[in-house]
Structures are given as C-alpha cells and as structure tokens.
C-alpha cells in the first residue's frame, strides 16, 4: 500500500512570509520545500529558543512549515577588561593611596597587595577605587580594618 507523501501546497515564498511575520529582528529566514532555516545573530540563548518556538507555534497546515533548522548564533558578550601592566597599575595605585595615608600597597603581576590600616567607614571607597584600575586582583587580606 502506497502512502501518499505529505506534500505541502504552500509555496516556499509564502512559507517565508509567514515565518518572517513572527520572526525576531536580526534573524534571517530561508525556505526550501517547506524546510525553514533560521540564521543570523541574537543576544541570548533565550532569544534563539524563542525564535524557534515562534515558528513552532504556527499552524503547520496553514503556514506550510515542514521542519526547522535553527542555525541562529548567540553573540558572545564581551569579556571584562583587565589591566595587568604593573607600571601603569602602580601609578594608578599611587594616585588612589594619596587619600589613604595609613594604607600602603605593592603591585606584582597585576595583583594589588594592600597593607597598613584603615577605618571601616573607608574600606568600601578604597576597594572601589582600586577595582576601578581593573587589576587582576585586589588583595586586601593583610589590611587591618579598624571599627
């Protein structure tokens, strides 16, 4: 017994319009024999999944979608910046410490090692200013904090 193939009567161009109508900006749609391919770049994995779900939500008989290839790429978010150059970091640390006379620090291989002592009320400000230099690490484990 021959089972007739499920050939869609919806032309590819129409399938494409149907899909584009529900598609995210930044996503390109191409269609061949009812097979929909999604491509392009979005900002998150969630957006990539949502794009596919939007197509799945269409009534296949009306839209003509037979299957979906999801080739959408998720944009890599830029990595945080790190300044690991000791000379520049030391100069920056020197400027910060002008306002914290009881604090001293040494820079080695991108890590700021903080020493001396400080009032608790000023600790956050010191850490903010040192982190602003974007070192590999701000090590305040040897700093004495007075309440």
């Amino acid at each position, binding site marked *: 017994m021959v089972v007739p193939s499920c050939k869609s009567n919806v032309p590819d161009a129409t399938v494409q319009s149907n899909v584009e109508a529900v598609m995210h900006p930044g996503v390109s749609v191409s269609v061949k024999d009812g097979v929909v391919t999604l491509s392009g770049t979005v900002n998150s994995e969630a957006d990539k999944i949502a794009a596919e779900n939007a197509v799945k939500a269409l009534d296949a008989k009306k839209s003509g979608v037979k299957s979906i290839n999801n080739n959408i790429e998720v944009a890599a978010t830029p990595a945080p910046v790190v300044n690991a150059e000791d000379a520049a970091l030391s100069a*920056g640390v020197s400027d910060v410490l002008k306002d914290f006379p009881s604090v001293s620090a040494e820079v080695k291989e991108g890590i700021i090692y903080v020493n001396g002592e400080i009032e608790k009320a000023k600790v956050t400000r010191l850490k903010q200013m040192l982190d*602003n230099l974007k*070192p*590999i*690490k701000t090590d*305040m484990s040897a700093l004495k904090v007075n309440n």
Partner: protein
Amino acid sequence: MSLQDKYSALIAEAQNSGLTDLRIGESDGVLRIQGTAPNADVKNKLWAIYDSIDPNYLSGDVVMDVDVAGAVAGAKVKVVTESSNLNIRKGPGTDQPIVGKAAKGEIITLISQANDQWWLVRTDDGEEGYCYAQYLSPVQ
C-alpha cells in the same frame, strides 16, 4: 562552592538593575563585574550586597568596576569627597600641580573624560583642570 554560586545574589542584582555595557566573567580565580549603573543608588546597592557576602572584601575574589551614567561632556557633577576639598590639577595625575579646589558638595561641570580615573572639569568660578573621577558623581 563556585564563585558564581557564592556571588549569585550579586550577579542577579547586576543583571536586573538596568546596567548598560554589563560584562561578567571569571579569570584567574576572580569574578569580574563591569558596567554602567543608571544612578548612584544602584551602584551603592551592588556594593552593599558584595560587602554582605564578603565583609571588608577580605577574600579578594571579586573585582567590581561599576560607574554611574551621566558622565557626558557638559554634565553637572557633584564633588563627593569624604570631608575635604577636591584638588583641581593642571594635568591628569597626582604629581601635577594643583591649580584650584572644589568644595565637598559643590556642583561643577564636566568638560571631558581624559581617562577612567581623571576628568577635565570647570567650576562656576572658571577654575579649570583635572579631578580624580572617583570623587565626582553625575547629578541626575
């Protein structure tokens, strides 16, 4: 416990507070958070959460550099020193001569950002020079 787990409350707050240019990553055993907060309250809240997880930042396993939006040419900025006047210098560095001072609480004008740490400013009296940016807060 991974850094992402230890600081999950901080990461969640950073992701849900409307920060722009948010970058979160981990390298060399340190969690890095960078971005621009819409206002000073958001930035302060992030630091309060960080301090609650790692009091006095003793572990040193986070580097957080969040600035406050509004630092554009012509913007008004407020001097937020602890108690003293803020030096206005001829060039961007503490080795540069002092050419003026701005009082704590004074509102001055940002001319341009020389770099992350030093901004060129002008007071209402017309004194012009460089101030350490960490002591200037954009007026919303």
